[in-house]
Each structure stands twice: as structure tokens, then as C-alpha cells.
């Protein structure tokens, strides 16, 4: 398999803040590569550097074998881009927006006409092709923006949080499109903060936090890493000796936050019974007791602690 994206020591500083911090990865031809991370992790900054919109502070990117610093135009011609916060030209019709994209990417007129018709039909917008985009709903706009990114029949498609804030139907349509494109052999680079979306769509996922990649792996493998990570959160009326709790059977980790103690465990049921026994024998009262499945943040904590 050949690499269509190669990223080496990529870094971006914004006046003292390091948004992306020496990241390295490759994306192979034909894969859907997910970039997963919470808000502010550096996903958009990374996509902007990969698509040549901003220049890195240091490091290099090559796309389809073209170094983005040296051959930005050639590299950009191979890409389709759906930026995170972007818009079509609302005063133009859907049709004119698509044709404008084709002209920017140097697509011959005849090809552009048939491709626009095909995309409008596929995205269920054909009836509205001559209407100004300002009359479109949010979902319709997002579909049009996605169609615009496909006008040059790109080898690689970059989607920055494509389903964020969309209604269920539009989101599903976009996900279906990602699968279809994958089946035709296109490479897709997708950022998201939805775990589900990443696991449904991606062959591999990079988890990014504070500008660093914490893990890169297939979603199922990542899930296995975090699968055992459930915890029980407890608080008592009086302070307790945490080492007693740590010594309980099945506990794999312990954190305190305020007056609450979080016990990481593979067997929540057994942990709860032990806690109840513990409080009874020490004459303590339990104030709160919850079992929690990990949030995305917990995954990050776990993955970054592992490093």
C-alpha cells in the first residue's frame, strides 16, 4: 500500500500556544483515516496544514507525493476539502457554486456539467439547483458544500467535523457518502469528536489531545484498550485511607477528585459489594455511589498516562 499522506514532525505555534506539537503519521491509499479529539485538540489546525491553508511552524507534509511547502498548487489539485466552518456563496445558486469550484480546480467544462448533475442528484438537491443557496436549510448547505468538494474528483477528501450540528438524516447521508467513496477507492481524512462516528467509518483512528497524538490504531483495537476502563465513584461521610481501597480485589487504578474517589475496575459489581462491606466494617456512611463508563476524556487520560 502506498502512502498518500505523509506527515513528519508537524508543528504549529500560535503566539506561544502550541496547537500542534511534532506529530507524525501516514495515511495509506484507500483508507478512511479518523482524527479524533476533543475541542481545541488541534484537529482543525492539522487539517489546515494538510490542505495548505496555513503554513506549519515546522515539519513537513506531503500529499500524493507532492511536498506541500514546495508544490502547493499541484498538491491541492488532488484534494477535496470540506472545512470545519465554511459556506457556499449564499448569493449564488447551487449550480453556480459547483461550476465555480470546477473552474478553480481546472475541471473541463463538459466534465463539470455532467459531474454537477450527478452530484446534485446524489445529494437530492437537483430540484433546487438554480435557487440561491441562502434559501437552503443547514443540512442542504452542508450537502452542497460536500458536493463542491467533490467537483474535482479528488484522490483524497478532507472532512473537518462534517456531521457536527447536523440533523440525523443529513448526517447519515454524509456518512453513507463516506462509505461509498471508500468503496470506490478514495482516501478520506476525517476529523470528529464523536467516538461512534469514528468507529463506524474509519479503518484507523489517531487520537489527538493538546496537539499530540496519543495513539493510532484501528478503532476496535482502541476500544479494547479502553474497554476494561469502567469506574466506580464513591464518597463517604468521613475521610478514608485510600490505600485500603486500592488493596481491594479487582481495582486497577484509583483517583481522587474533591471528596470523591474514583476506582477503576474490570468488575464494577464486585467493587460495589466490596465498598459496601468496607463502609459497614469501618462504620462509615456512603454519600454517593455511581458506576460510570468512560467518557472520551477518560480515554485520553488513560492513553496519555500510558505513554
Amino acid at each position, binding site marked *: 500500500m502506498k502512502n498518500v499522506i505523509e506527515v513528519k514532525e508537524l508543528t504549529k505555534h500560535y503566539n506561544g500556544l502550541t496547537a500542534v506539537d511534532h506529530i507524525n503519521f501516514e495515511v495509506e491509499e484507500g483508507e478512511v483515516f479518523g482524527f479524533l479529539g476533543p475541542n481545541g485538540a488541534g484537529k482543525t489546525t492539522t487539517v489546515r496544514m494538510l490542505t495548505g491553508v496555513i503554513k506549519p511552524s515546522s515539519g513537513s507534509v506531503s500529499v500524493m507525493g507532492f511536498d506541500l511547502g514546495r508544490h502547493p498548487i499541484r498538491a491541492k489539485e488532488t484534494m477535496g476539502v470540506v472545512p470545519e466552518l465554511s*459556506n457556499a456563496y449564499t448569493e449564488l445558486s447551487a449550480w453556480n457554486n459547483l461550476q465555480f469550484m470546477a*473552474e*478553480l480546480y481546472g475541471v473541463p467544462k463538459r466534465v463539470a456539467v455532467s459531474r454537477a448533475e450527478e452530484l446534485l442528484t446524489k445529494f437530492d438537491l437537483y430540484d433546487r439547483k438554480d435557487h440561491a443557496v441562502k434559501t437552503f436549510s443547514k443540512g442542504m448547505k452542508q450537502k452542497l458544500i460536500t458536493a463542491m468538494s467533490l467537483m474535482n474528483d479528488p484522490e483524497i477528501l478532507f472532512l473537518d467535523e462534517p456531521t457536527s450540528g447536523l440533523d440525523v438524516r443529513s448526517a447519515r447521508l454524509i456518512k453513507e457518502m463516506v462509505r461509498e467513496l471508500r468503496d470506490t477507492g478514495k482516501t478520506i481524512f476525517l476529523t470528529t469528536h464523536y467516538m461512534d462516528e469514528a468507529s463506524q467509518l474509519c479503518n484507523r483512528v489517531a487520537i489527538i489531545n493538546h496537539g499530540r497524538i496519543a495513539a493510532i490504531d484501528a478503532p476496535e483495537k482502541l476500544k479494547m484498550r479502553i474497554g476494561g476502563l469502567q469506574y466506580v465513584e464513591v464518597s463517604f461521610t468521613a475521610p478514608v485511607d485510600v490505600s485500603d481501597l486500592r488493596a481491594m480485589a479487582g481495582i486497577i487504578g484509583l483517583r481522587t477528585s474533591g471528596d470523591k474517589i474514583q476506582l477503576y475496575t474490570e468488575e464494577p459489581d464486585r467493587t460495589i459489594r466490596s465498598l459496601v462491606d468496607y463502609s459497614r466494617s469501618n462504620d462509615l456512611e456512603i454519600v454517593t455511589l455511581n458506576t460510570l463508563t468512560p467518557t472520551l476524556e477518560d480515554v485520553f487520560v488513560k492513553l496519555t498516562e500510558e505513554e
Partner: protein
Amino acid sequence: MIDQMRRAYAIAKKDVRIYYLKGPVIIFGILSPAFLFLAFMIGRDLHVDFLIAGLLGMTIFFTSTSVTPVIAPTETQTRNLERLAAAPISVTTILFGDMLASVLFGIAISLVPILLGMALGVTIVHPFILALGIVLAAFCFSAMGLIFSSTPTSMTSTVMMLSTMIKFPLVFISGIFIPVQELPSWGRALASLSPLTYITDLCRYSFQGACHYPVMVDIGALLVFLIVFMVIAIKLHERSLPKRL
């Protein structure tokens, strides 16, 4: 290179559709010079050739600088800019496209004072020089408009205020209302710093056959202003574009 020119043309087409076919832009482009003209010319005993040349210079100036300053802030606000930045085009191509639209608009509107002049009996002695002057000046003023919009703001009002503060004073130092040769020496020095002086002078040459500067100086000065404005605009926009996203 040819590809980039074609793409610049696509941008120009988009600009015309979005920005130029709006009523207010066209009206502002025609009315500003018309009002200034009326305010200063009524009741003064000046030759019609002289008047029309001044009106023509002002019209090219106001129309060519009317839209280029607002494109970048508007597209910052409407969030179209990141898509352009991701497209296989350079900043120069984007700016060139914006200029091209503005030039076409400037040339089209400049027909209004020319036709008006012809109706009033003005004859065009040097049509080729006039055409060349109009095209050069339209490019030059469009590039000047781009400089106004190079601060990375999304506020069109800020940019409009800035450009108006520079545009109106320029009109008064450019020998439009008073011939350059009748100005005191400091006035002449000031006039020589304004590109508007040279296109107005060229217009006078085209209509009256007489002008203050040699024709080649007028053309050369417009060219130099064009190149300087263009280089400054490109440098500034290359720096400000990433900050707008």
C-alpha cells in the same frame, strides 16, 4: 501560469455576480463623482473638455476602488475564504481575479461620462491613449483598493471608513478641480504623488490635446503606481489571509 489566469477569471466572474450586480455598488460608483463634480463645478466658468476629463478621472477612481476593499472582509465574514485558500490557486491569483472584476466594472462605468461628454460636444482626439489610460488607471485603483482591505478584519465598515478617509482627500490634490499648472508649487508637488493626477492629465490630453505632464510620464507614473500597489497588496494579503480564518 495560464491555468492560474483562467482561475483568476473564474474569481472575477464570481465577484461580478456577487458584488457588482448589486444596486448600491453601481449607484455609489456613479453618484459619488457626480455629486462632487456638481458641487465644485456649478457656476464656474470652465471649459467642458476640462470638466468632462475631471469627471472621467474621478469616475474611474471611485468605481475601481468601490468594491475591491470589501471583498476580503466580506468573505471573511461569510466564511468563504477558507475554501479559496484550500483551492489550487495562489494569493496573487485571488487578488488578480478581484482586480479583474473591478477593472471591468470601472471601464464599463467610465463609458457614462464619456458618452455624456460626447453628447455635450467633446471630441476625443486621442482615443487609443484614452483607452490605454482608462485600463491602466482602473488596474491601478483596483490594486489600491486591495491595499485598504489587507487588515485582517471582517468588518466592512472599518475598511470602508479607512478607504473613504484616503479617497476623498486624494480627489482634492489631484488637479481635478483646479488645473495642476495653476497650483502653487507645494500643490504641484502634492499632486505629483497622486495617481489620480496622471489619469486626469491623460484624459485632458485625450480630449483637449494638451496636458501638464508629457504623455509618457502619465503612462509611466500609472504603471509604476500599479506595480507598487500590486506588490504591496500581495505582500499584505499573503500575511493577512491566514489570520482571517
